[in-house]
């Protein structure tokens, strides 16, 4: 009898321990839990926000001081870790490649600012920008630390030649080229030219943006773009992300930050599988597909497109193919309509590429298998009804690649009727005004 009681008390203790631990974790990580819940199940719990661990502490001066010191300590250690990591990286590079690994102090390129033609002058001629001084690094680590700043200082100082502006809404993107500078005019000729293939050369840099759809596609794109055009790509895709839950991951801001660091010339966006859900904006519940929903979503799409446009980068927005999962059925067209419409507002820079014709038999409904001319019927979508098989990725990569063409090796100045070139510009048409410049 007593052994039974012992056993029962052991169960109870074990259960108490596990329960206590779970409740404590929920209490401490409540906000993370809610975020996860919203992200995974798309159910909005109307608790406002659950407290995080620090909100339990009283708001006294001593506690504030502790918090401050704790933050400082954390920053200090993460700084130390980052520093030692970059040192180890450089040490590894030096070990393998010797002095070649040292980043060369880049010679400054003097970009002479050129006044636009008389008839389109809208502002004073910009001052010549002082180039960064060549630096002699004392230590490899110093050189390492400098690399990033040198690279960003090198970003081209694009001077726009056309005054007219197609921007519909202003955005406060920090733009290292010319903030507030007008975008080129979308004349019919320029638009026709912009619809042709985007020309790529070895100096171009491509930014890949998206969710798990892009994560699967990116390796195929990176390899093919590199083989075909010798261009380097940066893949930022992250699963479970989209434009519906910026609290979890904020794509517009991420794209802006990416342009801060690097002068991308092309952006390819492929997302949306995580987006067809209701949102709450400032406590207000907005149903997917409703007018307010579309307005909020549209603004986020526009922010990404505008960031690319202000940096004179071309943007290819790949549409979401039909989704075969039960709760996502029929939701892709709503998203695609927004992408297409927003892209059409910036015809010189952005284009929407529908993926439905490539990935469906009838052009609109979900299918897992496709009849391919050489291979017969092949599986292009995975069992989840959302993602793609390798075969599907290949089809998508080929579709994306049709948007590009090779930039002519020798760049000659081209006088374009629609584009008032400034004479020093190299082959600059409105079609690819940044790409061929570089």
């Amino acid at each position, binding site marked *: 009898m007593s052994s039974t009681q012992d*056993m029962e008390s*052991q*169960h*109870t*203790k*074990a*259960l*108490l*321990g*596990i*329960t*206590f*631990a*779970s409740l404590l*974790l*929920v209490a*401490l*990580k409540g906000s*993370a*839990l809610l*975020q*996860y*819940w919203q992200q*995974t199940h798309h159910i909005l719990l109307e608790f406002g926000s659950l407290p995080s661990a620090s909100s339990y502490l009283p708001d006294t001066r001593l506690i504030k001081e502790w918090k401050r010191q704790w933050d400082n300590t954390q920053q200090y250690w993460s700084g130390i870790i980052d520093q030692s*990591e970059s040192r*180890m*990286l450089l*040490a*590894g*590079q030096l*070990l*393998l*490649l010797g002095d*070649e*690994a040292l980043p060369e102090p880049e010679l400054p390129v003097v970009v002479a600012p050129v006044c636009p033609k008389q008839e389109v002058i809208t502002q004073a001629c910009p001052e010549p920008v002082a180039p960064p001084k060549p630096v002699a690094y004392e230590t490899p680590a110093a050189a390492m630390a400098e690399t990033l700043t040198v690279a960003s200082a090198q970003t081209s100082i694009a001077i726009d030649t056309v005054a007219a502006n197609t921007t519909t809404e202003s955005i406060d993107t920090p733009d290292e080229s010319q903030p507030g500078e007008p975008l080129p005019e979308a004349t019919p000729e320029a638009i026709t030219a912009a619809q042709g293939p985007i020309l790529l050369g070895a100096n171009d840099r491509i930014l890949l943006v998206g*969710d*798990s*759809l892009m994560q699967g596609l*990116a*390796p195929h794109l*990176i*390899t093919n773009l*590199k083989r075909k055009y010798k261009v380097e790509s940066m*893949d930022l895709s992250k*699963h*479970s992300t989209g434009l519906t839950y910026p609290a*979890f991951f904020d794509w517009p801001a991420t794209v802006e930050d990416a342009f801060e660091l690097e002068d991308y010339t092309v952006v390819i966006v492929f997302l949306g*599988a*995580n987006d067809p859900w209701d949102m709450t904006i400032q406590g207000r519940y907005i149903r997917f597909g409703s007018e307010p929903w579309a307005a909020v979503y549209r603004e986020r799409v526009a922010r990404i497109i505008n960031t690319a446009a202000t940096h004179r980068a071309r943007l290819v927005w790949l549409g979401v193919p039909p989704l075969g999962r039960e709760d996502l059925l029929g939701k892709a067209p709503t998203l695609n309509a927004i992408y297409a419409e927003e892209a059409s507002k910036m015809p010189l820079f952005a284009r929407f590429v529908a993926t439905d014709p490539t990935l469906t038999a009838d052009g609109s409904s979900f299918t*897992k*298998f496709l009849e391919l001319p050489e291979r*017969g*019927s*092949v*599986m292009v979508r995975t*069992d*989840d009804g*959302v*993602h793609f098989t*390798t075969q599907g990725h290949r089809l998508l990569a080929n579709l994306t690649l049709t948007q590009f063409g090779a930039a002519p090796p020798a760049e000659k100045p081209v006088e374009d009727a629609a584009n008032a070139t400034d004479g020093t510009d190299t082959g600059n048409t409105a079609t690819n005004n940044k790409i061929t410049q570089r």
Partner: protein
Amino acid sequence: MHYLSPEFGLVFVGFLWLYWWLGSARGVRAQNLLLLVASYLFYCSFDWRFAFLLLNFSLVILALAQAVQGHNGNRRRWPVIAGVVLALVNLGIFKYYNFFREESLALLTPLFNGASLPVLEFVLPVGISFYTFQGLAYLISVGRGECKPAKLFDGLLHLSFFPTLLAGPICRPNELLTQIQSPDERKIAAPEVAILLIISALIKKVWLSAWLAEEWVNPVFANPDAYHSLELLCGLMAYAWQLFFDFSGYTDVVTALALLLGFSLPVNFRQPYLATSLSDFWRRWHITLSRWIRDYVYISLGGNRASWGRTQMNLLIAMVLSGFWHGASATFIVWGLWHGLGLIAQNCWQKITSFTLPDAITQWLTFAFVCFGWLLFRAEDWESVTTYVAGFSRWDTLPSLNWMGLLAAMVVFFMLARRAEPMMEKSAAALRVLPWWGQALALVASALLIMELAPAGMPGFIYFGF
């Protein structure tokens, strides 16, 4: 619902109270019934059709097991044969149909113009490979007279027990079924071990596996063209450890769940990368699968009872089948072939010479061999394998990843692997002396720390939809 998701954790905690209350109020049979219902509900949370398929499979296997015993006490053979055929056909339809369809079309097309096989859209039921093997192990054991046919509910629970349902361990009937059938009152044998296993699972799966994947494996495998030869090597080693952390972390958590329900599960991993030979590796990696293959494929083929050459052939067949079990793709078959040929080469060496290399060297050779195997395991197609291998000759690219840091981490992993067992024992002993709330605090503190260290914090470790 996944075992490491918060919703599973919270529901499971509530379930535990009900389960143990039922145990003290109504006894083991009521507990079993509750487990059976819970297991099917859990499976339904993925797709109700999966549960229906599992029920169907279980009923057929259990009925055939009943039919083994003849009226005059003889054991019949036909039910076992029928069961094996049916189970394999079932698995083949759901897991391999499209593979065979595409491969046979590729073969047929040159011969018959316009050859076609119907397209059937099957969704692979999660866990089907595991419960099929567990069901077969049960049926064959009954056929061999090693165990008696189970009663209906016991048998159903044996094949659907939710901790082992999704990805093993693949239990023998004398492991799980006997525990289900035992009339003795259940107990949580070692709650501190369960807590320790949960912490270990969090470290392995949430932190280390995710870190390796994010920092090394995903970038390197996504675009091998961009990396230095040494980075590719490091990426491969990182993938090897990622696989181990992922799968053994998973096994830790299901073992902990079973412990909290009063069951003990067989060991599935025993520090596989410390193996000093390939056969040693397979005694340490996914042990429950290896022994299934040994018991039911290798030994059924004749094992090592015939000639030496025949033994090697059996070995090769068993390894290729083991490879194919992992996935319906030619690369998995080649992966099985790689290991089979490796084992044969090792046997040849042992036959020719009695010379043995020091353990330190054989351990590294084994690890290197296994790592190259993982390259096939990960690859989606041939092209990705050749691209990766071609990269090993690239010595002039500027490395962009901290390979020295990774090598240091590898050294730490190997050192920890050597001490893993005594470390676990000592930690369990330390936890045992703590009161229940002390154990809970230890779990919370570890969980918070791991969430801080893990690459994406709390949400990152859960399997999201996309």
